[in-house]
């Protein structure tokens, strides 16, 4: 009887360990497939395939162009123009 109890305990432990191992492996595989096959922004779709696709992330603003295409802003931020002395050159250069 005592031997039978030990056998049952060992059997239950083995079943428990095998079960846990299976979940961990499938979790890993699922995570790996998400991170490798989908852009970060679309990862949620793998959880809920029926959800409406999100808009692609907007490109980062081009601050250089935003300013350099804006005449008023260029005038506003320009360094004060220092008066340039008239050229003292004479004749054809």
């Amino acid at each position, binding site marked *: 009887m005592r031997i039978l109890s030990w056998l049952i305990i060992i059997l239950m432990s083995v079943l428990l360990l095998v079960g846990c191992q299976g979940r961990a492996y499938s979790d890993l595989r699922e995570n790996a497939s998400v991170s490798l096959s989908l852009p970060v922004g679309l990862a949620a779709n793998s959880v809920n395939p029926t959800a409406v696709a999100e808009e692609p992330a907007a490109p*980062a*603003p*081009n*601050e*250089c*162009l*935003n*300013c*350099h*295409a804006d*005449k008023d802003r*260029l*005038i506003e*931020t*320009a*360094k004060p*123009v220092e008066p340039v*002395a008239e*050229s*003292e*050159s*004479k*004749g*054809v*250069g």
Partner: protein
Amino acid sequence: MAPLEPWEKVLVSAEKFPETVHGHIACTDCHGGVQSAEKDIAHQALVARPSEGNPNACSKCHTDIAMVYPGSLHATLQGYWTVLETRSVPADHPTLEKMFSNHCYRCHASCGDCHVAQPSSVGGGLFEGHLFARTPPMTRSCTACHGSRVGNEYLGKNEGFPGDVHFREGRMNCVNCHADEEMHGQPSNCMQCHKSPETVSLPAANHRYAGLQSPTCESCHPDTILGKDNIEMHTVHGADLSCQVCHSITYTSCDGCHVAISDKSGSPYFETQNTYSTFLIGLNPQRSYTRPYKYIPVRHIPTSPDAFEFYGKNLLPNFNLLPNWAYATPHNIQLKTPQAETCNSCHGNPDLFLTIDKVNTDEVEANQSVIVPLIPAPILETLEGTTSP
């Protein structure tokens, strides 16, 4: 050409530029700096002229041009140094380098000075909202620097003298003759066909008239040298006269240029004593395989023995080693010219030739190689009748 307003110089077209090839490159890839709405932050480590230096932002993609351009005269200004070194002594080179830096270096052109912005010598500023121009716009780029002689002659801005026939009749731009290979530092006559890597090993020119003549008139007018155009003048004189001897008209000469730094403003300036119109034929001082001509037009260039006196005494002790009536290629070509009207329009006409009486006494020694000792004799009338076209 009116200078651009400060904002105009740096205005980028938000509609057009992003659609261009260069518009797909991040601004900071070429210009450095950082993405920020704050100007002071955005401009940290900014590279305003990314085409300066070697390598530079352009050479990442335009590797073929980047291989040769550092040796081009537009980049090196070596033509000036070839002349300065001949006329000076090594001990004075540091002083001349200082002078050169103050007065001459503004003529240096990087890629951007021709292809995206006006040259810095005329104040700079983007052409058209940072759109790159494969062909530089003639008046905002080429003649912005080459204006006072070449530009005025070519465009007909010298009062009383027509512009070059290639402009008047053909509306030709500078680059129609001066092809990109030449502008980038290699002879276009060679490079248009020989595009292999060994071609770019041709040594860089040290003067505008050094090495192969490129461009040549014959490239577009081959019949003139093949005897197929039935013009006897070309057969008789083809090897003796540069094309400009018969086909150019009066052009500009200058005297007595001096440079200095202003006491008032601290800015460099120059003063040219005289500018006047000439057409004079001299001897070719450097006859070569591709420039075999005996006669060429000569232009009085403004340099003088004391041109740099502000920086020191006698900085050009070997001034007389080179003529200051210099080999010229006037850019005012005409089909018909007064000197080519008949044989005796030129033969026996002392007004056309640089004879010793037309040279200042103190410049005779420098110009021995170009002074015509004896002008060509007149052609007998009966003979002229048989030789005129």
